[in-house]
């Protein structure tokens, strides 16, 4: 058994013990959906960070910086600054006025059924896309990392899928939270260690480090001619090139800044703490962790570019392997196994968070509130439905990930999740909290416009619509072989204004005195915490 596999098994063992402990402790809806609202500020901060920093960040961003230098760092900046939107605008009102899901706040003043149905659709869309991206990545990664143990892509996908189902079905939010906390501790520890070793490699001299980055050497093969390239990796523009690069950067920035505060799996985390004040401090904890982590992504990415080199990474698994290969170059096989196990923990924690937020939304918003008009027919029904949903969601994610295969181009799905969250969810959250005149028609219209606009624009963007050269075959080929109709990779710059416009137009074209009358109630609740859900394990 290889060291990497041993560490994987160790992590899985610990998380299963936690799941068993959580399943013994928790009963009832508050416990299952919101961990009894008894998570403390630092715990929730770590859990938010663990929920948020996906494999796409750890492996993807490090890889992007290793291959495209400075432009990859733009993601890192956006991922942190986005938490100011969460902190200043969304977290506290959400905790004060809601119960289990994002839709609790959206539907507060409105007619519950249409708004919750749309919000559940949007939540399931965001969560499913995000999850498929993680599962395909996880399968490819685990298969690659455990190559020596003979574990296939399919086996890895099924393993990850079953684990996330077990965490959520048996342990609910409490187990999910602790899996995320442990993952965040491991990820921070591993990244700090790796960063220190990178700096040590340059004799702890920042100027030597940056000097090396300013002339990175690698080879490009074009028309079977191999040419050497020497590039300054601190210079912007290696990824985002004219004519549309600048617009794409701004569009990406908008999707990150507004999308984070609309990601359902992040928002539900604020229901797990006792009150709005704790929610606030947990965002601050998360910001310290997330900021520190993303600053270090430059050390990992630039470290991989200079110490390992692009050529070697390309030959040994591609961009996503930059961080693990850096660990191998600096610390040998043991460190490689350690960093690989962290990447594995990272994926598991994120997919568990996605599964529970999708199941909660289906059970609470769709089953109880849309189908059964807001009442459980028998006690415990909502939790039971959520458990069944978690199982179904997991099965769908496993099936889709296997059908798509390890070579599928899925990176755009993460971008799509952020775009939908920013274009559909955020406008409606903000307007329902701050605009008295907002109403049911506006909320439904805003969610529908944002969702449709982001999906449509992604379909015709270069991520899915590009003419591939004949050398590209199989799943790596783009879905539509056509010149892209929309030139940007990220639809945010168009779809976010459309989402706001749809919401505002819908509201202005209809009148709903009941929704306006309840504005005072929502404002008082959101700002004073009067009548907010209390902590309890029942």
């Amino acid at each position: 058994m290889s060291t990497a596999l041993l560490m994987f098994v160790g992590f899985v063992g610990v998380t299963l013990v936690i799941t068993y402990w959580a399943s013994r402790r928790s009963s009832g809806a508050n416990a299952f959906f919101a961990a009894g609202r008894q998570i403390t500020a630092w715990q929730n901060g770590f859990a938010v960070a663990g929920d948020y920093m996906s494999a796409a960040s750890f492996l993807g961003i490090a890889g992007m910086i290793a291959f495209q230098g400075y432009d990859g760092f733009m993601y890192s900046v956006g991922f942190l600054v986005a938490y100011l939107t969460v902190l200043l605008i969304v977290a506290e009102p959400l905790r004060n006025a809601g119960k289990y899901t994002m839709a609790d706040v959206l539907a507060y003043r409105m007619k519950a059924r249409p708004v919750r149905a749309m919000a559940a659709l949007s939540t399931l869309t965001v969560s499913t896309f995000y999850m498929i991206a993680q599962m395909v990545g996880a399968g490819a990664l685990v298969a690659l990392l455990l190559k020596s143990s003979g574990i296939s892509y399919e086996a890895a996908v099924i393993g990850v899928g079953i684990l996330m189902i077990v965490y959520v079905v048996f342990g609910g939010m409490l187990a999910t939270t602790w899996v995320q906390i442990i993952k965040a501790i491991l990820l921070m520890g591993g990244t700090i260690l790796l960063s220190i070793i990178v700096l040590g490699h340059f004799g702890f001299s920042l100027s030597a480090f940056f000097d090396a980055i300013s002339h990175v050497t690698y080879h490009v093969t074009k028309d079977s001619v191999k040419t050497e390239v020497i590039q300054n990796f601190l210079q912007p523009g290696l990824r985002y090139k004219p004519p549309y690069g600048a617009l794409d950067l701004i569009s990406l920035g908008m999707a990150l800044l507004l999308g984070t505060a609309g990601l359902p799996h992040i928002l539900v985390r604020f229901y797990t703490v006792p009150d709005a004040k704790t929610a606030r401090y947990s965002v601050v904890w998360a910001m310290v962790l997330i900021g520190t982590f993303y600053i270090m992504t430059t050390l990992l990415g630039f470290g991989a570019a200079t110490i390992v080199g692009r050529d070697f990474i390309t030959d040994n698994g591609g961009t996503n392997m930059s961080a693990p290969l850096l660990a191998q170059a600096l610390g040998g096989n043991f460190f490689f196994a350690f960093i690989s196990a962290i990447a594995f923990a990272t994926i598991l924690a994120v997919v568990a968070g996605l599964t529970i937020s999708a199941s909660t939304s289906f059970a609470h918003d769709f089953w109880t509130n849309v189908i059964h008009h807001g009442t459980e027919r028998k006690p415990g029904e909502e939790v039971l439905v959520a458990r069944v949903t978690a199982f179904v969601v997991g099965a769908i994610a496993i099936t889709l990930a296997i059908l798509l295969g390890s070579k599928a181009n899925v990176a755009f799905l993460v971008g799509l999740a952020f775009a939908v969250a920013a274009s559909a969810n955020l406008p409606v959250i903000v307007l329902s909290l701050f605009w008295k005149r907002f109403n049911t028609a506006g909320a439904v219209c805003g969610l529908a416009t944002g969702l449709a606009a982001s999906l449509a624009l992604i379909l015709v963007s270069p991520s899915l619509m590009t003419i591939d050269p004949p050398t590209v075959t199989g799943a790596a080929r783009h879905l539509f072989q056509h010149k892209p109709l929309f030139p940007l990779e990220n639809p945010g710059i168009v779809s976010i204004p459309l989402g706001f416009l749809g919401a505002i137009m819908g509201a202005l074209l209809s009148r709903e005195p009941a929704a306006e009358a309840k504005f005072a109630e929502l404002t008082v609740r959101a700002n004073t915490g009067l009548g907010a859900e209390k902590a309890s394990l029942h």
Partner: protein
Amino acid sequence: MTPDPNRKSPSDLTPSVGAATDIAPLGRTQPRPAHELTAAEEAQVTDWNKVAAMEEFRALLKAKLRFIAPATAFFAIYYFALPVLVGYAPELMGKKIFGAVNLAYLFALSQFVMAWVIAALYVRAAGRFDKMAEAILAKLKFK
């Protein structure tokens, strides 16, 4: 012991609910404390419009707006200045400041500091908002 007014005749010994002879009254006679009310029950006991119209509450909203609006405007402008400058003025941003470190990298790093500073300022201001909200709840006898 005072005679029970509900008793029809002195010979009727059936104890009535709430009579002094009962060990404990059924249910709760006092209104439940605020922390035990569900949102649905409270909807009827709190006059939300009255709270919303309270001078203290309006002052709280104003104080929040006075911090959050400028802070949001500032971080949005500061943040979008980065992609705009990097996208449209790459030569300027490529200017080397310390050794190989250029303006683009320093500006990106400064975004992290900016986010942390605004978060710290907000937490300080929010302590003040908490006190204002507590005073309102105290006045409403919820605390």
